[in-house]
């Protein structure tokens, strides 16, 4: 079977869950071959990728691949596509990987599909558009399909592959070195899972009332091992950092469980979360539109209900 290139997402060498999802998906389509970029490659990472089916692992961990914005990674993938003639290229539908996919599409004159939630036989891709309002089936009609798949869309399944490491000898062109990353600034986020990858997300909105009160949202999230999100009202008010915003102009999440506290559920917010499997809403306004999509809703003051829920969850663990 022909290769499916899978661009690995990792945080300082730790392989992210979405990559295991992509490998699981790739196994149905061909022979998965992982592509590692950036520092942090280790025997543990190799073992992890092999465990989920990577037959080969192409490693390009030289600094020049990751020291510039996006372009070198697109160049690397174009190089591998030229050498390996894969059936398809899979990347995670993250902001950066979608940009890599976009540049790669131009380089190899191939179609790109973004925010895919499933891939069927014949590389037909399922997409959920307009905030989950319409389900679309699309396919690439020219070139080698490049598909950006949303995190949390594929159940992960282990199935061992050989995991043969192959170093990629590749020189980044000067043209791809236009935008240099001079510093990476990390903002505190604690030990919580990443928003788009988390199985459970607890979000707070206008009803939370202040930055200080977001601690009750964080405590509930921590009791459930969840990520914390926020509505735009909350991020605009400066109560919670912008990168945690869920919604049309923020992140799209599809967790197993989404708890919305003090969020009315405006269409802009729903666009970012209504594909969650189970939705729980807590809001003092019984007319809030969030209750229209909630599997379970509690009408009342979140400042009473959320801490009580945290206590109950902790007690029952």
């Amino acid at each position, binding site marked *: 079977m022909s290769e499916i290139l899978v661009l690995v997402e990792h945080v300082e060498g730790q392989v992210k869950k979405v990559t295991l999802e992509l490998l699981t998906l790739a196994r149905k389509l061909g022979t998965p071959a992982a592509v590692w970029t950036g520092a942090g490659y280790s025997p543990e990472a190799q073992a992890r990728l092999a465990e989920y089916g990577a037959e080969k692992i192409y490693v390009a961990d030289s600094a020049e691949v990751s020291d510039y914005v996006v372009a070198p990674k697109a160049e690397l993938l174009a190089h591998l596509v030229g050498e390996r003639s894969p059936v398809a290229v899979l990347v995670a539908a993250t902001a950066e990987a979608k940009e890599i996919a976009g540049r790669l599409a131009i380089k190899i004159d191939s179609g*790109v599909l973004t925010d895919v939630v499933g891939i069927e036989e014949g590389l037909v891709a399922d997409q959920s558009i307009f905030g989950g309002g319409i389900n679309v*089936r699309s396919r690439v009609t020219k070139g080698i399909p490049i598909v950006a798949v949303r995190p949390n869309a594929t159940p992960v399944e282990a199935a061992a592959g050989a995991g043969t490491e192959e170093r990629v000898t590749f020189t980044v062109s000067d043209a791809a070195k236009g935008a240099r990353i001079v510093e990476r600034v990390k903002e505190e986020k604690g030990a919580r899972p990443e928003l788009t990858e988390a199985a459970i997300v607890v979000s707070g909105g206008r009803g939370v009332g202040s930055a200080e009160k977001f601690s009750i949202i964080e405590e509930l999230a921590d009791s459930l091992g969840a990520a914390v999100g926020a509505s735009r009202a909350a991020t605009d008010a400066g109560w919670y950092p912008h*990168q945690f915003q869920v919604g049309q102009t923020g992140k799209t999440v599809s967790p197993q469980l989404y708890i919305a506290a003090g969020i009315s559920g405006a269409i802009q917010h729903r666009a970012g979360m209504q594909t969650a499997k189970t939705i729980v809403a807590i809001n003092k306004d019984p007319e809030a539109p969030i209750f229209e999509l909630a599997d379970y809703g509690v009408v009342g003051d979140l400042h009473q209900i959320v801490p009580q829920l945290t206590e109950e969850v902790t007690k*029952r663990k």
Partner: protein
Amino acid sequence: MNIVVCVKQVPDTATERKLRSDDNTLDRDAADGVINELCEYAVEEALRLKEAHGGEVTVLTMGPAKASDTIRKALAMGADKAVHLVDDALHGSDALGTSHALAQTLKKIGFDLVVLGSESTDARTGVLAAMLAERLGVPQLTFANQVQVDGGAISIQRVTDYGYDKVEASLPAVVSVVEKINEPRYPSFKGIMAAKKKPVEKLGVADAEIDASQVGLANSWSEVADFAVAPPRAAGTVVKDEGDGGVKAADFLASKKFV
């Protein structure tokens, strides 16, 4: 500094958005067209850069005749002039085709800096700025929450999952912005009146030297095979808090095996 800000007209999120049953493309007549929200932040940033460094702001849009409303909005905010890429041959272009058409136009009109919103609310691909940088062969400075220009040098803060990256490059360059970057101004009455007199140049595929075989629905690199309206979520149980709302919610979570 010659700044070109690319804007897009999108269907209003608050109205029902549809696809056309004849060719599976966006039904632009079904919903009110509005300026894409992140494009307003791009216009604002372009205006601020002009105010700080001098130069001119040109609005560039690709879209049907009715996209002229979106151009007027950007001009009313304070942009100097506009280019409207309008041609039936462009209908149904995917991101690759759109980036080709815009890149050709940008080459023709010239630029020191191209500014875009980081994604649109309709297609939400988030790839266009990167594609333009690729096609134009200039640095990609995308997902910026801060932009600084100093002579021929430009630096941004690129938003990441863990915080941000500081990125440096030289002009010319392509920048895309996130909403945290600024607070877009409202057009003043004077601005709205002045916008009516500002020049809007209309260009077609041939005028902009766009390769007709690279644009339009029939030449797209991908296609929508079919689509269906998603079944609405069924409303669930809603209870009123009687002092035990947290306990009840915990019972529900336990019933679904989350606890």
